[in-house]
């Protein structure tokens, strides 16, 4: 056969018709986009980039760099901040949530402060972080920490509370100490919910980082976006967005892998 694409499409169709339709609709969209911009010129390129514009922009940032560096260091810079903020939030949020879940007294004591902080959107912390720490990396890590902290706490707390009471009773009947019940029954039982919280935290981390870098940054993907906006360079905006989406997807997949390792007893 002369058309390998067609053959591929036919074999995908026979195995997974749903995926084939999805693939076809994406290809049609891409083709329509290409025809409307590069071929027919229906859409103003200064507002909406064409595929070839994006290709040029991607080549430019990969080889010569844009907004202070080439793509890989820029992406790594943003990734490092997200991972740092996310890890700090995880390391503080999960233990706090677990403690709040275990002890009603501790919960009652901490709750007022937590309830006051909770409704404030994480992005609203950015100006305060800038007043405190300027445009340094630490300001961004602080804001990401706030953003990722709340879902981590809430889900760890809810996870501990949602553990089946009969399991706890069964542990107690068999003579397990309180510490062992916490360690062997409550925390593993809360794990699936804790990971749900972590996924939300990760999403919040990326959103917050993008906002913080758009407001002010020396390097990073948000800086690429804001520079491209100022230069009215839509293709570069698109390259920045695609990179952010890919990194977001990549970190989410990594988290899924960790979850599969940690929550091994759960069936998928």
């Amino acid at each position: 056969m002369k058309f390998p694409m067609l053959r591929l499409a036919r074999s995908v169709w026979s195995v997974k018709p749903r995926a084939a339709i999805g693939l076809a609709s994406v290809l049609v969209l891409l083709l329509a986009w290409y025809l409307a911009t590069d071929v027919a010129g229906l859409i103003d390129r200064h507002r909406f980039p064409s595929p070839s514009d994006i290709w040029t922009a991607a080549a430019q940032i990969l080889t010569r760099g844009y907004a202070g560096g080439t793509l890989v260091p820029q992406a790594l810079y943003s990734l490092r901040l997200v991972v740092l903020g996310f890890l700090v939030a995880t390391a503080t949020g999960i233990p706090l949530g677990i403690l709040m879940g275990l002890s009603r007294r501790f919960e009652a004591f901490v709750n007022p402060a937590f309830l006051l902080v909770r409704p404030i959107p994480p992005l609203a912390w950015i100006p305060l972080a800038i007043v405190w720490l300027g445009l340094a990396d630490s300001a961004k890590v602080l804001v990401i920490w706030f953003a990722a902290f709340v879902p981590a706490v809430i889900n760890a707390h809810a996870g501990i509370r949602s553990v089946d009471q009969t399991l706890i009773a069964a542990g107690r009947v068999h003579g397990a100490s309180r510490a062992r019940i916490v360690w062997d029954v409550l925390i593993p039982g809360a794990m699936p919910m804790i990971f749900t919280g972590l996924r939300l935290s990760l999403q919040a981390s990326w959103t917050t980082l993008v906002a913080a870098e758009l407001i002010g940054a020396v390097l990073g993907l948000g800086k690429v976006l804001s520079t491209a906006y100022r230069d009215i360079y839509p293709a570069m905006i698109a390259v920045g967005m695609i990179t952010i989406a890919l990194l977001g997807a990549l970190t989410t997949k990594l988290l899924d892998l960790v979850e599969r390792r940690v929550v091994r007893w759960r069936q998928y």
Partner: protein
Amino acid sequence: MLSLAGAAAFFGLWQILAGSGLVSKFVLPSPSDVLVAALTMMVEPFAGDTIQGHVGASLVRWAMGFGLAAGIGVPLGLAMGYWRLLDAMVSPVFEAYRYIAPLAWVPFAALWFGTGIGGPVMVIFTGAFAPCVLNAYRGAHLVERHLIEAARTLGAGGLRVLAEVLLPGALPSVVSGLRVGAGLGWQSLIGAELIVVSSGIGYVLVLGQSNLAPEIVMAAMLAVGVTGLLIDVALRFAEARIRRRWGQTP
């Protein structure tokens, strides 16, 4: 009792830390400073308007963006739940869109629709859209198949099934999606106002920051938090009512 003690400890520590002079006023204002700033801004205009005025301006934008997201997202989600072909066609595009942080749309939104009304509305839309679609989609799957089949047998067309069978059946799920979307939309709006827009409550935050007036920043944060909370409470109330009226207990 313990909650009261916790609140007292929190505010006491804050007040002492701020009052002791260990930390500068330009870093951490005391809670009373923040309260005074908030009350002053309610009476005296700051940056052209009182704090209620700024919140109002933000709320109008939010309502437009959220209305658009709900008006497009819910029907789309229901339709995807009903027509498999549409589901297979839209899903990959939708999944790709979900990975883009809403705030990453800010440059395009400003470029396409300006920084007045259109740009912020688009950012709110991108923030609120995904939960609206997802929950309508899930809700549509929860509707019992024979209800749909019964309607079809009695001669209802696709659109009628959507409006009269799927929408009522999916309503509880739809409303919780709307609640999540409302929160995310509000949050995205604050981000947009911080970055490009020069009005609204987010802009007050920026001004407070550039004037090195943390008490104004904190007062504005308080206003943002309270407004978000009120939106959430109102929608929770609506959700509870709708659940009582439409929810089938599974």
